[in-house]
């Protein structure tokens, strides 16, 4: 399925945040991975209406439209991300789920001051990879929850605490875990 690997962006003994990097249109968007509940194909998601997966329901949201990104139609690489916390859950389509990346907190940059509009609510900043610049989606905005101050604080992992694929709420993450179990930690995304 869609996940291509797991990568540590920098060697760090400090705080990191794990992201799922996906393509929305041509844009690399990073989602704090702690709230990723699954990555499924459109066929697995079924037709219209909420996505039912592992006894949970995920209302659909058109994230590309909410970002105002022009996205192509469905392709063989299209994946539906199941995203949620204890309060709310959503499913949304991405052009491709590229993989997991652990990013040192010091490598996360805020949006430059010149960005003054609604993007400051939608995006928490960005980080730089050799191959791309990933924009960090505000997970509270994704779930249509009231945002909070320093939203990434809820997603910080101490390096010594890291446990791949263990979600905060214990919701099923079968496909997510299955994909990662096949990857070598620290490997490059393909």
């Amino acid at each position, binding site marked *: 399925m869609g996940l291509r690997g797991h990568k540590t962006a920098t060697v760090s003994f400090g705080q990191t945040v794990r992201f799922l990097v996906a393509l929305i249109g*041509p*844009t*690399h968007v990073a989602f704090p991975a702690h709230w990723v509940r699954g990555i499924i194909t459109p066929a697995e998601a079924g037709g219209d209406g909420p996505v039912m997966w592992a006894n949970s329901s995920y209302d659909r949201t058109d994230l590309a439209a909410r*970002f*105002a*990104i022009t996205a192509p139609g469905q392709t063989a690489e299209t994946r539906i991300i199941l995203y949620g916390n204890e309060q709310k859950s959503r499913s949304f389509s991405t052009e491709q789920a590229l993989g997991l990346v652990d990013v040192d907190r010091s490598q996360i*940059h805020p*949006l*430059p*001051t*010149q*960005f*003054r*509009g*609604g*993007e400051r609510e*939608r*995006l928490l900043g*960005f980080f*730089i990879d050799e191959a*791309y*610049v990933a*924009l960090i989606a505000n997970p509270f905005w994704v779930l249509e929850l009231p945002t909070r101050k320093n939203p990434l604080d809820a997603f910080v992992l101490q390096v010594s605490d890291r446990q791949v694929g263990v979600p905060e709420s214990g919701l099923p993450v079968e496909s997510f875990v299955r994909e990662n179990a096949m990857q070598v930690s620290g490997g490059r995304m393909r």
Partner: protein
Amino acid sequence: MLRAQLRKQSPTGSTGATEARIQNMVVFSVAGQRFAARTDEIGGVTPWPGATTVPSDTPFIDSLVRHEKGCLPVFDLAAKFHRAMRDGERLCLIVKHVDGPLAICIDAHVPSLHMVARSLIQYRDGNDPDIAGTCIAGEEELPIINLTTLGVSSNRFAR
């Protein structure tokens, strides 16, 4: 990378009085339209590294470019003047903006440095706060762009 083009109008003397009578200006082009800007508002010129689009509501600030170890926001000067950049080689003009360094995508034609007599510069208030006035560089009358405050006022109006 700036190419000095000293014109007849530009005295080469360096006395204080002479310096007071001239203004160093850089002339560059964006999608074929030529602009002037004060030299001290420019941080450098580099090859265009390619941009990452940011879904943004801020007028004309809609992407990031890599610069040194970070990224700079990009002001789309071509879009502001309703022009479209042509495909092909481009340069990145780094601007000393009041909110921090800013990048502008400009044509591949290397910007040129002009020493312009102050008598040939006309500052005036217009409808567009990003335009300071006009100057005559070489034999052309060019709009002077306020690079350091680019977009600040239009953002204010947009909100």
